[in-house]
């Protein structure tokens, strides 16, 4: 299960947070944990270079994309490698939506489309689509090209 996807700006403010199967009372804890993790480790990290951590039986893969940092949290079959795949899909789709590495402003400008993109990538905790071109079409309600 992919437990969480979180986007934050460079100051650690949340831009998007989506939890699956995480009780409401634990969400705040996760949010501050992830933001702290980013603040401690993301300084000087190159765009899209992945960082990884584990907390008990849960894995976290995170990175920087322009002005925003992206975190995905998973457990069981979504271990560090599967999450690396998930975050790769997310970052390439977000870049695709923004047309380049997002600034915070650009990210917010494209907010609606980014929400739709995430909706295509993750379906309440499961990876659904992985190809950015297909995702771009699905967001516009167009069938995939290979079909």
């Amino acid at each position, binding site marked *: 299960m992919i437990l969480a996807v979180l986007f934050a700006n460079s100051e650690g403010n949340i831009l998007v947070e989506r939890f699956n199967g995480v009780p409401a009372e634990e969400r705040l804890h996760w949010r501050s944990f992830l933001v702290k993790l980013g603040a401690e480790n993301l300084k000087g990290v190159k765009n899209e270079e992945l960082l990884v951590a584990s907390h008990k039986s849960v894995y976290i893969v995170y990175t920087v994309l322009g002005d925003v940092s992206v975190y995905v949290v998973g457990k069981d079959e979504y271990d560090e*490698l599967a999450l690396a795949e998930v975050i790769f899909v997310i970052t390439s789709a977000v870049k695709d939506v923004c047309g380049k590495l997002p*600034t915070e402003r650009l990210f917010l400008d494209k907010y609606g489309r980014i929400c739709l993109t995430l909706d295509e990538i993750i*379906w309440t905790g499961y990876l659904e689509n992985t190809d950015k071109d297909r995702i771009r079409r699905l967001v516009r309600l167009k*069938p995939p090209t290979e079909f």
Partner: protein
Amino acid sequence: MAQPLVKKDDDRDDEADYSPFMGIEKGAVLQEARVFNDPQLDPRRCSQVITKLLYLLNQGETFTKVEATEVFFAVTKLFQSKDIGLRRMVYVMIKELSPSADEVIIVTSSLMKDMTSKTDMYRANAIRVLCRITDGTLLTQIERYLKQAIVDKNPVVASAALVSGIHLLQTNPEIVKRWSNEVQEAVQSRAALVQFHALALLHQIRQNDRLAVNKLVSSLTKGSVRSPLAQCLLIRYTSQVIRESANTQAGDRPFYDFLEGCLRHKAEMVIFEAARAITELNGVTSRELTPAITVLQLFLSSSKPVLRFAAVRTLNKVAMTHPMAVTNCNIDMESLISDQNRSIATLAITTLLKTGNESSVDRLMKQITNFMSDIADEFKIVVVDAIRSLCLKFPLKHRSLMNFLSNILREEGGFEYKKAIVDSIVILIRDIPEAKESGLLHLCEFIEDCEFTYLSTQILHFLGIEGPKTSDPNKYIRYIYNRVHLENATVRAAAVSTLAKFGAMVDTLKPRIFVLLRRCLFDNDDEVRDRATLYLNTLGGDGTVVQTGDDVKEFLFGSLDIPLVNLENSLKNYEPSEESFDINSVPREVKTQPLAEKKAPGKKPTGLGAPPAGPPSTVDAYDKLLSSIPEFANFGKLFKSSAPVELTEAETEYAVNVVKHIFDGHVVFQYNCTNTIPEQLLENVIVIVDASEAEEFSEVASKPLRSLPYDSPGQTFVAFEKPEGIPAVGKFSNMLRFIVKEVDPSTGEAEDDGVEDEYQLEELEVVAADYMLKVGVSNFRNAWESMDADCERVDEYGLGPRESLAEAVNAVIDLLGMQPCEGTEVVPNNSRSHTCLLSGVYIGNVKVLVRLQFGLDGPKDVAMKLAVRSEDEAVSDAIHEIVASG
């Protein structure tokens, strides 16, 4: 990380600073949502409002029930619009709002229409929305469409239905299970993602049917699975099948070839999954392990952090069971110590500490020193624990490891971290005699500048025990006395006690200690003054330097052999009167937790939490108790007291447990009874013991309990004679007999007349292990070789089919009741053979050592070779007899 927002030039000033959501406020957005009700819908405007609503929800904002309902009804109006972009937003919004069952009905028909639409994308999205908001009844209505969708030609529609199926399986399993055939067909799909989703769903549907999973794995491992994600799932399911299959004969492992083949897959994800699956195989052999370790070693130097992390995490696990298999990777692992990703570096270090040999310790420590300064406390604690284990493994390296610990003790750190270091030093001092003096000095230096009162007092207590036994106790006094000047009252009081201990134990130091203690009489804290006064008076601080008597030492520093909680209760109940408080009136039995024996046998000391002289020796406490009872006074020295054995179920009217006290020619049963009924008072409580199944025992005495009020435990005893020095065994049945009197709850007074009653207790057994004391030896090999080989007896036994090797090892340890040595009671996972070393003292004070070699013979059968050495060959034979008859 990227630059924060900065002004670049005037033209872009406004644009850069302006956030489309600046000052966004829930109430205002909900107002804006009224545009959804406009007869002339503006799709662009509506999409903007939905985006704002999504932004609010994604920030963790919640809508009240009324607000959510209002937005939901408004959103449903948007189905009228033909705008595609808006429709896509509507789908997301409905999912986010997750309306209640009575509201769903409004939108069902629109969604049903979309689900049967000719536009594929409408179908896919409508399925996802419907499945998110549906309940069982609606699901049966749309089931037909969902089954069709699973085998739809459009992969997006099929995936939507399959992933929906994964979710619906949790809530409506019986419906989803009916889709097996369609899902099975989808597993064969040419579309990679459809195959992945179908495989996940099919496995979930069949996960409780071992045969079906086996069939699924068999067919798919032969065919080609397109998506790497699906291949990873298949590897996981394959490992599950291997785990569950009973056939574990070497070289014959089913599906191993498939796993090994996956190591050559082009996707790294698949390679890793296969490598991990191999390392986790039950009883994996080195031949099987080698190819997996080779690919993991390659991953260690990958440019991708995720791969490095995955590899080092897996190798870290392998190092616990097969350290030798991982040593080849040590060089790659060492370069990871400087990895920017701290999780990777910590895993690398702890793995190296597990696999390193004695010669590499110094080099490793140098590398770790640089690393420690820039990691968080939680990682540091992991490293400290690993270093402690390493030091116990290579005691000769104690100097450099102890120095490392003392250096990090001086650096910044929180309480938990400092406590972990102090605990480690204490354990090393205890287990490695050569490390004692330097360790104590490190602790002394630490308390000179320690901000944690708890740690200071614990260290002072420990110094009081160990310091006087060193060659030069003099040198610790300065550190201790400094505390009296510089610290808070709690630490000062602890320091006074420690000084007094030195005074009591080391006669040459006594005059100078008295001078120091006298200075403490003017302390501004009363506890410090009181302690100083007490010690000066009892140790003879009136100027005469005499040897401190054992009784005084026992009084001042001896263990308190009554439970503190009982003492506290008795003191609370004591009413000041002419009669002074009598400590002997305090009950010695704890109510629910039995005395210290509750601690797991063989459990490692946990540092300061359990100082060696801290908990009272229970045998001493029992010895005192029994010798104070005239009937048992002539039984001689108490050999062993067992842990309490419960004779009643939990939460019954009367709670009774029994402790078996073994003497050379007698056995005494101590029944600890508790009356849990407030309205009853029990009198003349005695246990009637039927020893007809214990022929060698004959009852010689019993001591009834005069009165057993509510919730105040008491004891009654029954003593048996048995042949001297013989480990007689037998079964005893027990009946509690008493006179019960009603108690008036309002006054607490009992009635004068009572009724005799009985209460059946469980049976009790005296077994061979009761005649064995758990006494460990520090170096088993030396002890074994110093014992006469003529008194060795060796034989082999078949233990029959067993649940696991570990279970068989524990059963034999329990049967013999001996102390496992050198951690050999722990059986590594997947082992097919194991050696366990035991030590003990048999009745008659005969030392016994046992070497047990276990091996798996076939899938479950355990065979055992038992070698016994003791000071008396008859005892060696007796041990074999115990095993043969056990």
